[in-house]
Every structure is written in C-alpha cells, then in structure tokens.
C-alpha cells in the first residue's frame, strides 16, 4: 500500500517552480499502475521519492508525506526500505563490465550483510530470476555486450531479485522495439499478479497503459491530473488536459480495451 499526502518538491536553485505540487494519491497492494504525463511532468521524481532516493539539489517540502504500509517512509532505514521497494532508474549505466550474473546478484544487496559474501539463498534467487526472465544463456556475458532488450531484461531480473512488494520502473521500455516491449510488459504483469506485488511504471507509450495496468496516474507539470482506473483515464478529457492536445478513443480490435489517438497537434 502506498499513500502520498501533499507531496511537493522543488530544486534548490528554483524554489518557485515545483517539480511536484501537492500530489496526494493512494495505491492498493497488487495494483499495476501506469504513470503517464509529458516530459518534465514529474514522473521520475515521483518514483524516486517513493523509493527514498536522495536526488542532489531536490528538496521535499516538510508538509509532504509518503506512507508505505502504514509507516512513514522516512522512518525506514535505507536497507529495510530497499527490502520493500525496488526501483529501476532511468539513464543509469554500470561503470564496469560486470557479468550478467554478478549484476543480478546485486539485487540481493539489501538482504545481505555489509561484509560477508552473498549467501546460498541469494545466489539461488539470482539464478531463479535469470531463468524467469529467460536470460540464463547470458549468465556469464559482460553487461556491456548486450543488446538493449537483453540489458533491460537483466535490469528487471535484478529488480525482481530484490524481492520487494513494490516495484518501480522508470520508463523501462523507452528504447526497446515493439516486440521486446510487449513481451517484457506481459512478463512483468504475469509475475506481479502471481506475487500480488504492486507495480508503478512510467510510460511514454500511453496505449500500453490499458493493456497492462488497472490504474493510471496522470501528471502535468508536477500536478496530479488524475489517479484512477485506467479505463476512466481512457475516456473524457484527462489525457487532453495532461498532454495539451486533443485525443480520440477507439476499441482495441484484439484486446478489447480502449486506445487513444491524437486528433489535433498544437
């Protein structure tokens, strides 16, 4: 369960412009949530703050609160928060050529001790994630030698190895081809439903939202436009408000959910 109350944040050098402004919302356990909105609408910031990441220069206002399972997120220690929430961050790359297995094993860091080597359980869990993501054959490859789709599978395997109830994915499919995106989303949805875990993922492909999520958060310039059932977002003028352009809707001929298309460009 995630509860945000009046979440507001801004960057030190520009206190007037809020990156997030009084965002209050509630996500139940087991929800799969799409986070939609134009570039710079605060999607990444929202996910980072829920994951408890310190972003240099970013200040969260005192009136804000993030409550995870009834407990204020500030009161978690770094490690125990990471046992609860995992984040697949955007634009971050490894600095050294680790093997795929070593990279996935790092997902177990929050469950292991500072000095001791990773336990048998950690290693088994990493092996299991390789299998689940269908990348066992890449096990000993360098993570610098993978294709975009393979790399993203490794990163998702690492996030899953963290075995958290809440999984945050920041634009995980932006650079992937349509087939890789579709198969990965299908897999994530399946795993999340099996484990009854909560998933928040920011997406640029808004038509993926009705296919893979039951809820949608819609942001515009740091303000919450709407948080509700995805079917609700895909009717009415919510999308038009968020993206400053007109949308039309049609029924997906195969999956029987609503899809959107732009009717006018600004």
């Amino acid at each position: 369960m995630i509860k945000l109350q009046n979440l507001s944040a801004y960057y030190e050098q520009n206190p007037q412009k809020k990156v997030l402004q009084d965002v209050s919302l509630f996500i139940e356990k087991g929800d799969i949530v799409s986070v939609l909105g134009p570039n710079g609408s605060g999607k990444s910031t929202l996910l980072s703050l829920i994951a408890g990441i310190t972003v240099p220069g970013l200040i969260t206002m005192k009136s804000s609160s993030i409550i995870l399972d009834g407990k204020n997120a500030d009161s978690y220690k770094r490690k125990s928060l990471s046992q609860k929430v995992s984040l697949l961050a955007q634009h971050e790359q490894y600095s050294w050529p680790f093997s795929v297995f070593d990279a996935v094993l790092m997902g177990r860091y929050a469950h292991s001790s500072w000095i001791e080597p990773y336990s048998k359980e950690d290693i088994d869990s990493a092996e299991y994630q390789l299998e689940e993501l269908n990348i066992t054959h890449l096990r000993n490859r360098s993570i610098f030698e993978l294709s975009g789709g393979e790399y993203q599978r490794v990163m998702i395997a690492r996030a899953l190895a963290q075995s958290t109830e809440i999984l945050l994915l920041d634009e995980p499919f932006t650079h992937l081809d349509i087939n890789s995106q579709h198969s990965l989303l299908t897999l994530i949805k399946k795993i999340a439903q099996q484990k009854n875990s909560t998933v928040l993922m920011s997406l640029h492909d808004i038509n993926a939202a009705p296919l893979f999520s039951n809820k949608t958060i819609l942001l515009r310039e740091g303000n919450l436009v709407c948080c509700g059932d995805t079917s609700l977002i895909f009717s009415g003028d919510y999308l038009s408000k968020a993206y400053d352009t007109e949308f039309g809707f049609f029924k997906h001929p195969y999956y029987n959910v609503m899809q959107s298309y732009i009717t006018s460009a600004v």
Partner: protein
Amino acid sequence: MALLAIIFAVSLVIGAEKVTIAEVLTALQTQNYSAFHLRILFTLRLPRSILAMLSGALLAGAGTVFQGFFRNSLADPGLIGVSSGATLGAVLFSIFSLFIPLGAFLGAIGAVMLVYVIAGGKKTSFEPSRLLLAGTALGVFFSALTSIVILMKDKELYKMYLWTQGSFNGKGWQFVHIILIPSMLSIIAMFLTAKPLDVLSSGEKTAQSLGLPLQKVRVLCLISGSLASATAVCAGGTIGFIGLIAPHIIRILFGSTHKKLLPLSMIFGSILLLLADILSRTITAPMELPIGIVTAVLGVPFFLQILLHGKKGIGR
C-alpha cells in the same frame, strides 16, 4: 602470491652489493647475522623491500577504491592530486616539526575533497574530464607549493627532493614501524568498501534503491583511500601510476567484482613496485634512480594506451 614471494626474495639479494640466497640460508641456520652482507640485508634491504611491498599494495588498493568511488578507470592517487596533497601536507608538517604522517593524511583527504567538489560531486554524476582536469590542475598546484616550501628550507633540500620523487633508499625499520599500523587500518577499511563499491558502480540512484547508504559509503571510501595514499606517501614519497595500472590490468584479467579486484590489485601493486624498486637501484648502479621516475617511464605508455582505447567494455 607465490610470484610476490619470489620477487620479494629476489629484491633482497639484488643490489650494489651481492648477497647470495645461500648466505642468507646459512645465516638463518647458524643464527649468525653479523657478516657484513647480512647486515646490509637485515638493516637495509629487508625493511626497504617491506616498504616497497606495502606501498605497492596501498597505492593499488587506493587506486581501486578511488576508481570505484569516482566510477572512472582513470582515477589514481597520483592523477587526482591526492598524492601531491599528501606530500604538501607532509612537507608542511615537517617544517613545523609536527607529526608528518598526520600531515600527509590531512593533505590527502583535503585534496580528495577539493577534487570531489570541483568535479561536480554535488551533482548526480561526475564528468570524467572535469575530474581529470581538476585533479591534474590541483596536483600541479600542490607540487608547485611543495617546491616553494622546499626551496625556502634549502638545508633539507636534497632529502626532500628525493622524497617527493619517491624513493625507498635509506629508509630503515623505523619507517616500517611508522607505517605498519596505518597500513593495516587502511587495508582493512578498503576491504570493507568491496561489496559497496560493486553496488555503487550501478549508478547513484540505483545504488541507493538497492539499499546502499550512499553518504556512509562515500565517507568510508574517502577516508580509507586517503589513508592508504597518505601512508604510501610517508613510506616512499609520490609514486605515480601503480594505482592506475594495477586495478586496470586485474579488471581485464579477473573481472570487475571488487571482492577479487581489491586483493588481487594489491598483490599485483606490490609486485610492480618491488620490480620498480629493483630496477631503480640496478639500472644506474651504484647510483639510484628515484622510483617515481621508473614507474612513470613504465606507466605513461600504458596510460596513453588506456586513453587511446577509451573506456570500452571488457568481458567477464
């Protein structure tokens, strides 16, 4: 390890005066250490080789930690200005007759923090070019200040000059005693950074989300790396490139996980510095070359090669 032992043994017998291994063994058996050659061995060469070995391990360890900390394969105590900072601190403290190793440590940690701030430590990520520019500029600046200070105190000029160039010549057991405890402390502290450095290399946001307490780990890296660099400077002055080369080669050969990288780099650094020390006292014997010159001549071509080939992914 075996290779290190062999080279350590070789370093004991090579020098201006020949001492054979047979002589050493006889002495050990008969408990008679009074022969001239053996006095050379036990009062001069043994401490010297221990110093070179420890310095090599410390420099390579510090290089590994700084490379992990800055997430950049070009970080090295010499290149990022830490060694020059330590030298300046040590020279300043020696003028005021204060405890030299403390000066070296303060100089080292001050230099790292300056470079860290200038290279954009408060922003999300370091720009490699800024790191190198800041490090090099500060290094040159510190060296210049050191030269000015030395010139003002011309009585000890030659000794200090040799020391800033790096040398183990004439350093006896008292140096081993001074650096032993800080060496052990910094080596233990550096080993504590091994697992966190793996996680840190995933990026700063990701590392936090994986459960890494970023600030604590940063402080541990800064302190352990600076203490190691400063101790190495106390033992042998400014010696460049060991901290750059050792982790780089070990990473290519044995992979990137710091659990292996740290100890293997330290062993390799010891081997390299012992070899450099042997070369420094044999090439121009009976004259001695400052060891910094030897490591620079060997290290610069290697460094240029890394620059030419960039930070490409290497397997494993």
